[in-house]
């Protein structure tokens, strides 16, 4: 009847609510009215097809006034806010990025935890050698053996910008903050992952050997 508990058909365990990794929860605002109040109607920016071109130079030129403003704020507050166009620069060599984005190696254990966290989003699409969770995606290759198939350098570029390997890929570029359309206010100007998080995940993926 109407009052019964809503069991799920897929097994004994209830599924994690979809909002943990999909839909409304991601915006951290559950209440539709509240969401509405917080929504800003802003026009769309450059089309997604403009991706691949790093826009830092273009941005520096047009945003020189905001750079001055940031300098003023910094000299008052003694802290420079992290800005989108100040992602750590990196250098592609062949089909990879050989050097660590942070200058030091990542921590594989932390990387594993990150890959499994829904908020990191890998597990939405990928599966892998993760017996502890049934909630894995199948939109993308299983990550088992990724460390055999790819070098750390290739894995790093794949995470930073998968569209370099396949322009049509659905895999997001985790270390990019430009060339995107209508990014939500909470996420605007930020890469999906930090340089340190990328390094932890690269370190973990490199351990995935058959």
């Amino acid at each position, binding site marked *: 009847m109407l009052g019964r508990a809503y069991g799920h058909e897929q097994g004994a365990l209830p599924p994690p609510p979809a909002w943990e990794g999909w*839909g409304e929860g*991601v915006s951290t605002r559950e209440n539709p009215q509240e969401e509405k109040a917080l929504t800003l109607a802003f026009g*769309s920016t450059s089309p997604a097809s403009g991706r691949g071109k790093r826009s830092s130079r273009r941005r520096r030129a047009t945003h020189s006034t905001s750079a001055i403003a940031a300098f003023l704020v910094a000299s008052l507050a003694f802290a420079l806010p992290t800005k989108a166009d100040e992602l750590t620069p990196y250098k592609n060599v062949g089909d990879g990025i050989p050097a660590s984005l942070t200058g030091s190696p990542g921590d594989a254990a932390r990387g594993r935890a990150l890959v499994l966290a*829904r908020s990191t989003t890998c597990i939405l699409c990928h599966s892998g050698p993760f017996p502890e969770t049934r909630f894995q*995606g199948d939109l993308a290759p299983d990550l088992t053996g990724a460390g055999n198939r790819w070098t750390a350098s290739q894995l790093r570029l794949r995470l930073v910008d998968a569209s370099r390997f396949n322009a049509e890929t659905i895999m*997001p570029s985790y270390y990019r903050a430009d060339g995107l359309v209508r*990014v*939500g206010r909470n996420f*605007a100007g930020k890469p999906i992952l930090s340089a340190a998080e990328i390094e932890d995940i690269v370190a973990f993926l490199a351990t995935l050997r058959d």
Partner: protein
Amino acid sequence: MSVWRAIAAAALVSAAPALLAGEIPPDARRSGYSFMGPDTRAMQDDDTSNPGMLFVLDGEQLWGKKTGSADKACANCHGDARSSMKGVAARHPAFDKTLDRPVTLDQRINLCRANHQQAAPLPYESRDLLALSAYVAHQSRGAAITAGDDPQAKPFVDQGRELFMQREGQLNLACTNCHDDNFDKRLAGAPITQGQPTGYPLYRLEWQTLGSLERRLRSCMSGVRAQAYEYGSPELVALELYLMSRARGLPMETPAVRP
């Protein structure tokens, strides 16, 4: 495949308007219902266990209740909803000649409140608006979707299609990436459907309440970490219209149940 089936398939292909790349052919269109497990299907199928039916009953009350400074009920103009409202939800969003744009069923209800009942608009996702739209849409249960057939709606259908194809948000994904290219696959273990709008407003177990199609679309937009469009915005109406035209021929299910 038998010769007859091959001929029938070929005939279908030549008779149907040309499909755009990536679109789901009419005979392959499937409601979200067909992706659900037996328990959730049973909940939708049985009116005594379908929680959406509580809203339909509330809507029936509101239909007959006088309101606004005109002191009129919906029933005073439209009579018995069971006949007058049949098929209405299946053709919404519908082009409104006075406004020169398509309006959703929610907007139509609020236009009637403003113009004929002289009553304040009901807020989006409010219990009363959901109840009224559930009651009206329930009268179309089983009717084939026809929204978007009106030639005047065409530019808005096209706008909606463009939005459907547009990658957006921090995750840089378009609706089509999931609902055209990857239905039947699983996102973190949960099935991805074709995103057919057949059952709205519907009861989602995850929400623990009835919700509108716009709520669902906004939730997919937050999922890709995009700035969701405002309720009632031209963009959401266009997307809704495109989705309905993309579901052409599928039967309405309101109030559906989804996981």
